[in-house]
Every structure is written in structure tokens, then in C-alpha cells.
């Protein structure tokens, strides 16, 4: 029986605390005797570190310690490999994870060299400026292709190469596909770096309680449990001696995953050594240099098609920039490789990539996590093919969608969860039609024509994507009915604004028939729940949400059994009703959950053998496969061909994330994702010079889209239930930003049909688009495709 909690949008449980300023963020943690940290960081992209002179810094009043690599002893260890590479035949992976403080070699600007600990942050910053770093610059490695040439300088001498990985995955026979093709197109695509730009930077506070022998760490991490486990191991403590709290966090977007950043491992170490609490909060400058980024890739991609626009095969060679270190393994390029296939039937696929070390900040997943690269390549190839074949963009997509009766569908290539790429469910064509209806398939061309008569250039783009979400290994939850009658839910995830306090409460409220506001959710505190992985890969709602459902279901059974016993009935004679259990045939015989919880935890008498006290249960959920979300994005733009400014007039998302727990939260995720995607398409780019120096490390020069640049997304939801979890859930955290670059490129081209404009790179900017428009000849001069012409 549906109680209507799942699928509705009640006021969020967390909003009161957030809106009244009472939510705890890490920087709100103030402890008696707390010391403050500033880091001395590399100015060089690549250099030999000769010496670090800390004497002047130590002489400054208020400085407690200045730590360099040599002082760390055995604690100086490269960070853990967070995600090992999947078991792909012939795979090459060269591991080089980040170090807590640079010892001999500086590998990117902003790499930590020394940690200054002082009575205040002001003193620490001044003392950091006193530290003299002597380094001999080395030639930097910046260009992805040049990095692999024999004479290139090498970042990690022990590896003897800048190759971080080489991976080939394929299914079908691409060579055969080409032989049978009427049209073969190939292009080179560039996708450059951006920052996650979370509103809250990273922060860590650590306190060692000598008497309790307990370390408490407040950390802006997305994955508190892996951080606890790792810190315990590194510091020689029991896991139970370490408590990691990820309180409210102002945006994660990937870089706050269990990175074991230098600051994250050094602050707890210093707190234990010094016997005083220690705090470090990243400033925005540091964030630009020291927090991980995404996403430079270069793709040489080729698509073979039949005359009627059917994809016969795709071959893609690409270079992936992993930055100075590769602690996160191959998640990002594997996502690119797998997500390229999208919702399409691709009979033959050959994908080969090389991950490359460069003297830039380390690359780990940022919202989208490489998926947008694959989508960009696929959708651009389809657009170019459609033009060559005289098909409309929507028609070539329609012709290539996987049919709704092929699911579950498995591709013979491995996904980031190490299992063959598996689409659990999907239904793509209706989403395309729905998006076209919202844009106005009849009215838009008329509008476009009318505007053009006024000298205004409107264009529309429409693209598709899939997103593998909700992967394992597992998450857990504990549900407890307290004697107050209120329900407590604990899970191990970290939360960074996804509405977990409400969405999980809705799931539990639905099972137990209580008010959503009476369900108190706690996340991100390892003392509350100690098993789990973390918030990433659009998996929180699917995996932890399913665990909440399972735990609540067990509690529900306990309530029925215990209630029936007290009410003198059998479990199948009772029902739940608004926080009570009652006899269905005689609702006057009822007992409230609170009273029942008291009975279940008696002070006298005996608990019935074979049962547990209390109304509590812990459950875990680990899906065999993720669940495949999908969608169609459409965009209407107006382009000023003289200034190359683009105004995004409308943005339409038809999205399928399975069963919606909370439509308003889903809408918020999509809207935020689109904002991220628009930034990535037209505003945000981390610009490095040939020396590996970041040129725009401030929000004065790194442009985030503002509220004026991001239209309110027109949204429609489709609910193709996921078959592999009890509620039919799919993830939605990244959906908004994945296809945005692709739809932007198509829309801009569509606005200027008189030009032979072909966009092969993202991010664009007004100035870069200006150059492309200047260089684009008239459309009439576009060369005919030789493959078709010869036919």
C-alpha cells in the first residue's frame, strides 16, 4: 500500500538547520587550544627539490612547528591506490599516487612542500612565506602527445615513462564494419579541464583525546568510512579509535572523495604529535591548485555508417590527462570509454586509450567523471553523420536507439565496477519524442525562421545519453524506533547537499507509516555507522536508499510481531497506522511505536529467546549491477554572430532515473547539473600555459556561469523502474552535466546554418567561438564527403 511518502516532495528535513545557520560545517569547528595550518606549496610545475629552509619560519613568534617530508619518518608514504584498474586483458597500469609532502621532486604547481602549524592562521600564512624553497626547475610535461615521445622529460623516474595506462576494449569487428560502410567519418575532438568549484573548499580538523585514546577528524569528505579505515591503518590505531565526521558539506562533486589528500593525512598526524587540535581550511587559491580536477582528453574518433544512418561501428583512440598522479586509477577514462556508446546499438566498437602523467594538478572524477567526454564524441559524430546523410539530428538518433525489448543488455567491455557494461533497463525513443514536444517540433522551426527574418540567429540542439549509476559494492543503514516514537536512521554515506536527510526519511516513512519529519537521518559520522563506501557515481539514493528500505522492512516486521504479541493478536491480524500498530479488525486495540519500543527493551522480565531487544535493524544492499539512467537534453540558443556571445534561451531535460523518491530534489539535482554543464560548455576552463602554470586561478578569471546564464530547466520525468533494487531507483546526481557540451555545440551550429561551422572542442568561450566563426567558411563551400561522393 502506498502511503504517498515516496514520490512526494515534503519540506526537507535539513532545511531548518541550513536556513537558520545552525548546520555544522567543518570550518565551524572551534576547539580549545586549536592550532592552525598553512601549507608551503610549489610554484613550479616540475622541479627538483633541493632544500627547504624553515629556520626563519620557526623563529616567528606563534609558530609551533614546520613539518617537511623528512620529518614524517615512516609516515611518509605515497597515498593508497583508491581504485585498482579493472581486469582487462593486456591492460597496462603504472601507479604513482600522491605523497603527503614533496620530497625530491615537485610535480605540479600547488603541491604541498611544508606544513606550517601556528597559533593562528595569520601567523601560519606569514610563516609559510618565510620558508625558503630551493628548487631547480625541470622541463615541464604538458602536451599529452609529446609526453609519450622518447625524449620527453619523465615525471616519475621509477616508471621510466609518462604512460600511466594503456587500455584496449572492443567488441565486434570494426574493420569489417568499415568494409560494409557507406560513410566513414573521422574527427579529432578536444575536451579541456575544468574545476569542480564547490562552494565550500576542503577543510580538516583533528583532535586526539589522550585519555580516551580516540582520534576525531572532521573532514569535508564524501567518503568518511574509507577515510577512517585508512587513517587508522596509517596511524596504527584501531578503526574504532578513529571517528571521522563529515558534517554538512557545501558541495562535493567528486574531488572530496576518499582521496587521502596530503592535508587530510597530515592534520590528524600533527594533532596526535602535538597533543592539540589542529585545523586547516583550504582557501580558494589553494583549491585551484591542490584540489583534484578533470578532464583533458583528446579523441581521434571514427564512425562507420550505412546510407540509412545506422551505426555499423566506432573506433576511438584517445589520450587522457591524469595529471601528476593517478591515485584514482582508471575510473575517468573507463567511464569515457563505456559511456560513449550511449543509448545506441553499436555492433562494433574499438576503443583504446592512453592515460598520461602531466605536470598539472591530479585528475580524479568531477561530476560526470569522464562520461561527458564519451557523450560529446558520440553525439558530435552523429551530428556530422546526419549532416552528411541529409538526416535531421533527432532522426539519426531515433534510428540507432537500442530497442526497449533488448534489456537487460550487456556489452562485452568492462565498466568502472569491473563487470561487463550492463544496461539494466531503458526506453529511449519516448524520451526523444517528449523532448521534441516540449521544444515544439512544429513551432520551433517557425520561430527560427521568423527570428532570422529579424536578423536574429536561433538554434536548437537535441542529444541523448545514458549514465551508469548506483554501482556497488554496498551501503548499509540502521533503522531504530526510539522510545519517543521517532525513528532514527543512520547510514555511512557522506552528504553534500543531495537531500539525504529527507529522501532516506521518505523511504523509511513509507515502510513504517510515520511522518517524514519524525524520521531523523544521520549520515557521514563513522561513530553512527561504520560500514560503507561513500557518495559518488550517482549511487547514494540507489544503494544506501535500498539499504534504508531493507532495514525499515525488517523493523516493520519486528513492529508487527511485537505489537501483535502485546495486542493479543497474530502478526497477520495487525497493521501499521500513522506510528501505531493496531488490530485491523478492531482499530481501538492499538499501541504507539514509542510505547512498543519501551516494551521491546524491558528493564525486567526477559527478552524472548531468539529475538533481539529493541525495534532496530541493520541491513546492507549491494547490487549485482548498477542501474542505467538515461535522458534527452535539448537546448535553444541565440547566437550573436558578430560578438560570438551565446544566450541560452531554453533548456529542456527529459530524464529517466527510474522511480522518483522526491521530485523536487531530483529537479534540483538536474538543474544544478545543467548549471555545471553550461559552465563546462561555454564558461569554465582551466588554462595552463606551456610551462604548466595555471593562468586563471581565481574567480576573476575562471568564469562560473551565473544565475543569469542558466535558464530554469524545463523538465519532464520518465520512470522506467530499475529491476535490480526494490524501489526501482536510478541515480540522478550527474545527469544534468553529462550531455551539455554536446547539445550546446549542436545548437550553436544549428543557429548558423550559413556557416561551415563544426565544433570539435569543449569548453568554448565567446572569444574561442569568435575565432571559430571567423575561420568558418560559408556552408556552401563545405567539401562533400568523399566516401559518399565516390559511391
Amino acid at each position: 500500500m502506498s502511503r504517498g511518502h515516496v514520490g512526494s516532495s515534503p519540506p526537507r528535513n535539513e532545511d531548518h538547520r541550513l536556513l537558520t545557520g545552525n548546520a555544522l560545517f567543518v570550518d565551524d569547528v572551534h576547539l580549545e587550544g586549536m592550532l592552525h595550518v598553512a601549507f608551503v606549496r610549489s610554484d613550479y610545475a616540475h622541479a627538483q627539490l633541493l632544500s627547504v629552509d624553515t629556520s626563519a619560519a620557526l623563529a616567528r613568534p606563534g609558530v609551533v612547528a614546520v613539518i617537511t617530508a623528512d620529518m614524517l619518518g615512516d609516515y611518509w608514504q605515497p597515498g593508497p591506490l583508491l581504485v585498482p584498474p579493472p581486469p582487462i586483458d593486456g591492460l597496462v597500469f603504472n601507479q604513482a599516487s600522491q605523497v603527503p609532502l614533496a620530497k625530491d621532486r615537485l610535480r605540479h604547481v600547488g603541491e604541498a612542500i611544508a606544513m606550517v602549524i601556528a597559533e593562528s592562521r595569520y601567523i601560519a600564512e606569514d610563516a609559510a612565506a618565510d620558508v625558503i624553497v630551493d628548487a631547480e626547475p625541470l622541463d615541464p610535461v604538458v602536451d599529452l602527445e609529446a609526453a609519450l615521445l622518447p625524449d620527453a622529460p619523465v615525471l616519475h623516474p621509477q616508471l621510466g615513462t609518462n604512460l600511466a595506462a594503456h587500455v584496449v576494449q572492443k567488441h565486434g569487428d570494426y574493420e569489417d564494419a568499415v568494409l560494409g560502410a557507406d560513410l566513414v567519418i573521422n574527427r579529432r575532438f578536444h575536451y579541456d579541464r575544468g574545476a569542480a568549484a564547490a562552494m565550500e573548499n576542503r577543510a580538516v580538523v583533528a583532535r586526539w583525546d589522550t585519555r580516551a585514546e580516540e582520534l576525531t577528524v572532521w573532514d569535508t569528505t564524501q567518503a568518511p568510512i574509507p577515510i577512517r579505515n585508512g587513517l587508522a591503518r596509517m596511524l596504527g590505531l584501531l578503526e574504532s579509535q578513529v571517528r571521522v565526521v563529515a558534517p554538512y558539506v557545501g558541495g562535493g562533486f567528486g574531488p572530496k572523495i576518499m582521496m587521502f589528500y596530503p592535508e587530510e593525512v597530515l592534520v590528524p598526524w600533527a594533532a596526535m604529535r602535538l597533543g592539540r587540535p589542529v585545523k586547516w581550511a583550504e582557501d580558494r587559491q589553494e583549491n585551484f591548485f591542490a584540489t583534484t580536477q578533470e578532464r583533458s582528453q583528446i579523441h581521434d574518433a571514427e564512425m562507420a555508417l550505412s546510407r540509412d544512418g545506422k551505426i555499423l561501428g566506432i573506433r576511438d583512440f584517445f589520450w587522457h590527462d591524469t595529471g601528476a598522479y593517478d591515485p584514482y586509477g582508471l575510473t575517468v577514462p573507463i567511464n569515457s570509454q563505456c559511456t560513449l556508446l550511449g543509448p545506441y546499438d553499436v555492433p562494433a566498437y574499438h576503443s583504446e586509450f592512453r592515460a598520461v602523467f602531466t605536470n598539472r594538478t591530479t585528475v580524479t572524477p568531477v561530476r560526470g567523471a569522464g562520461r561527458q567526454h564519451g557523450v560529446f564524441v558520440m553525439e558530435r559524430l552523429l551530428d556530422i553523420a546526419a549532416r552528411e546523410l541529409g538526416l535531421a539530428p533527432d532522426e539519426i538518433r531515433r534510428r540507432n536507439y537500442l530497442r526497449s525489448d533488448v534489456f537487460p543488455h550487456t556489452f562485452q567491455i568492462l565498466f568502472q565496477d569491473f563487470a561487463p557494461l550492463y544496461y539494466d533497463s531503458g526506453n529511449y525513443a519516448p524520451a526523444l519524442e517528449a523532448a521534441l514536444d516540449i521544444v515544439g517540433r512544429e513551432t520551433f522551426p517557425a520561430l527560427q525562421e521568423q527570428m532570422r527574418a529579424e536578423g536574429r540567429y536561433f538554434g536548437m540542439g537535441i542529444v541523448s545519453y545514458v549514465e551508469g549509476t548506483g554501482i556497488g559494492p554496498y551501503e548499509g543503514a540502521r533503522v531504530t524506533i526510539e522510545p519517543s516514537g521517532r525513528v532514527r536512521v543512520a547510514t555511512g554515506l557522506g552528504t553534500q547537499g543531495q537531500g539525504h536527510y529527507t529522501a532516506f526519511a521518505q523511504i523509511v516513512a513509507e515502510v513504517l507509516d510515520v511522518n517524514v519529519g519524525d524520521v531523523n537521518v544521520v549520515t557521514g559520522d563513522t561513530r553512527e555507522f561504520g560500514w560503507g563506501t561513500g557518495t559518488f557515481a550517482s549511487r547514494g539514493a540507489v544503494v544506501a536508499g535500498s539499504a534504508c528500505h531493507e532495514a525499515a522492512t525488517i523493523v516493520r516486521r519486528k513492529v508487527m510481531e511485537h505489537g501483535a504479541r502485546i495486542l493479543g493478536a497474530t502478526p497477520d491480524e495487525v497493521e501499521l497506522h500513522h506510528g501505531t500498530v493496531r488490530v485491523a479488525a478492531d482499530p481501538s486495540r492499538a499501541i504507539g511505536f514509542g510505547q512498543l519500543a519501551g516494551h521491546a527493551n524491558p528493564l525486567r522480565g526477559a527478552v524472548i529467546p531468539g529475538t533481539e531487544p529493541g525495534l532496530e535493524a541493520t541491513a546492507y544492499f549491494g547490487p549485482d549491477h548498477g542501474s542505467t539512467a538515461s535522458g534527452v537534453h535539448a537546448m535553444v540558443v541565440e547566437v550573436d554572430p558578430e560578438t560570438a556571445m551565446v544566450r541560452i534561451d531554453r533548456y529542456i531535460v527529459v530524464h529517466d532515473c527510474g522511480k522518483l523518491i522526491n521530485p523536487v530534489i531530483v529537479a534540483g539535482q538536474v538543474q544544478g547539473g545543467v548549471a555545471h554543464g553550461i559552465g563546462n560548455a561555454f564558461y569554465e576552463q582551466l588554462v595552463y600555459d606551456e610551462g604548466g602554470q595555471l593562468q586563471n586561478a581565481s574567480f576573476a578569471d575562471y568564469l562560473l556561469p551565473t544565475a543569469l546564464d542558466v535558464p530554469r530547466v524545463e523538465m519532464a520525468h520518465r520512470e522506467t523502474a530499475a529491476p535490480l533494487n526494490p524501489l526501482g531507483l536510478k541515480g540522478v546526481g550527474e545527469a544534468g552535466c553529462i550531455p551539455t557540451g554536446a547539445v550546446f555545440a549542436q545548437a550553436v551550429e544549428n543557429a548558423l546554418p550559413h556557416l561551415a561551422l563544426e565544433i570539435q572542442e569543449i569548453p568554448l568561450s565567446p572569444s574561442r567561438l569568435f575565432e571559430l566563426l571567423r575561420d568558418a567558411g560559408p556552408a556552401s563551400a563545405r567539401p562533400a564527403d568523399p566516401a559518399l561522393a565516390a559511391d
Partner: protein
Amino acid sequence: MIVDGEHTFPGPRPALWTLLQDPEVLAKAMPGARRLALTGDGVYTGVIRIGVGPVTAAEWSLTVRLADLVEPASYTMHVDSKGALGFTRGTATVNLDEVDEGTRMRYHADLSVGGKVAGVGQRLLDQVAKMLTKQGLDALNKEVEARLAADAAGGAE
């Protein structure tokens, strides 16, 4: 970052050459110079204080090593400057030619700028470099004129 250009000084080439090797003159001409001394054969070290746009003024240690000296026609400067906000390093070539108006200096510097100053000062870096170069050349020009006037006065004694 490339900084290049030319400037014509009023005096004869040998006089200008001598002035350009004099740490006292250079200290006066160099914008923000706090100290500058000849500390070795053709090596000058010192401290300058400069800010770039949003980067507040800070002290930078400076080492300039002169090389490839072809008196009085040309030399190369190897510049290495470091501070809490980053670094500047690179090479500048200076050519002196005799012209009707006096001595023409042609300079071409290829400098790499790194660290905080590169990250946040970028949009102002070129302008600041041009401004500092102009300030330096103007100061040097004034010094040349003063020396010439002094020499002329001395010669009249």
C-alpha cells in the same frame, strides 16, 4: 612572457655600457629595487618589492647573471627572481647600437612566471611588465642624462 622593445639614450655607447654594469645605477633604475649589489663576476643579487594587480606588493629575491658580454655592443642577462608569491626566470638579450641620437638599446626578454602571481595576476602581467620596463628605462635615461651632465661639468673644470 616576452618583453621586448627598444629605447634610444642620449649618450655615446661606451658610456652607456659602463652605466649598465654599475650596480648603483641599476639599483636606481630598477623599479622597486631595495638592494642590489655586485656579488661576483657579472653576478648581481638583490631584493625588489613589486605587486601585480590583485597580488599585493611583496619582496622578491633577485639574481641577475650577465653572460656573453661583447663590449660595448651586447650581453645576455640570466634572471632568477623568487618570492613568496612565485617566481620569474628567464633570459634577456641586450644590444646596443650607435645611432645619430646617441645609443639605441634593443632588448628581448623571454621570461617564465610561475606560482600565485601567474595564477591570479595573469590578465595584468603583460601590462605590469610593460609599465615596469618603461619606468626602468625612464629612470635609466634620467641617470644617463645626469651622468653626462656631471661629466660635462667635470670636463669643464
